[in-house]
């Protein structure tokens, strides 16, 4: 009888702890998907704004959800050619804009961004796979807007504007 009571209290304590843990994980998930999250970004496509070796940036999810992004913002986008990959690019054109870009050193092309789409490019135009290759991307692929760099610490702060603006 006493043993049973002891077991019951242990079980109740374990249950309480796991409920608290589950609530904490839920809070973490909601903050991560609806408010902001820190993301490790690497690769040469946003050089010199972001280091090719890797930066940790703070991305917020509110403005993409509410639809208040503007030209020049650095955004996280789910890559159209590989849904498991998220890339960091800068918004060059909004819907209805006419965008002119270099296809190869001799030839220019000019397109109008369709409704509900964005034109995104990396700051390093020589090593970036972006809208120049796969065309404009639907707004629904946006995952967040990069607010500031938080690591390395000496580069802390908002990202400077690219050469485009």
């Amino acid at each position, binding site marked *: 009888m006493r043993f049973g009571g002891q077991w019951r209290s242990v079980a109740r304590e374990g249950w309480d702890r796991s409920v608290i843990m*589950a*609530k904490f*994980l*839920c*809070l973490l*998930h*909601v903050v991560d*998907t*609806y408010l902001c999250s820190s993301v490790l970004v690497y690769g040469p496509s946003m050089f010199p704004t972001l280091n090719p070796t890797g930066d940790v940036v703070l991305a917020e999810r509110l403005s993409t959800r509410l*639809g208040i992004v503007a030209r020049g913002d650095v955004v996280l986008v*789910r*890559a*159209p*050619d*590989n*849904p*498991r990959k998220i890339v960091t690019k800068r918004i060059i054109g909004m819907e209805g804009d006419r965008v002119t870009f270099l296809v190869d050193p001799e030839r220019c092309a000019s397109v109008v961004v*369709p*409704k*509900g*789409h964005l034109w995104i490019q990396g700051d390093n135009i020589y090593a970036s796979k972006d809208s120049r290759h*796969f065309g404009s*991307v*639907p*707004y*629904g*692929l*946006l995952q967040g807007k990069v607010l500031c760099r938080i690591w390395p610490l000496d580069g802390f702060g908002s990202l400077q504007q690219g050469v485009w603006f």
Partner: protein
Amino acid sequence: MGTVSSFWAYTRKSLTAGLIAFTVSDRFASISPVRGLSMHPTFNPHTTSSLLESLMDDHVLVEKFCLEKYKFSHGDIVVFRSPSNYKEKHIKRIIALPGDWIKVPHQQDTLKIPEGHCWVEGDNATSSLDSRSFGPIPLGLIQGRATHIVWPPQRVGKLEKRMPQGRVVQY
């Protein structure tokens, strides 16, 4: 004093419930209503649109586990954000996956689905806005896969994978 503390407890409880609901609907599964006739007769088999029958719109269970790997098969019914307006969500059937060749209706040629894209169509070809008008969509727009009808009670059941014959050429 008592009212303040009970109000506080109530707020805390509803906040916690909200957190759990958001997490479950994002990570595991959610229930969403199906409006319109684009998937008739799979969803919404009634054709008139009186007020009473619009209350009886089909509700489907949308599972989110498929979003971890983005692996889909032909004939899956998926919920995705519209490529022209991110606030709208559409429900359609996947007809072709990356690497397939598809015969586009009213055109003679076949089209290759690019990497990371899919071709979606409604079951009701006459009133459906789908890949026939906006082309292949990126898989990244997909928000979940519909597996069961959960409402109204007489239509509860599992959704079948169905494929129109002879549309897709695989190599």
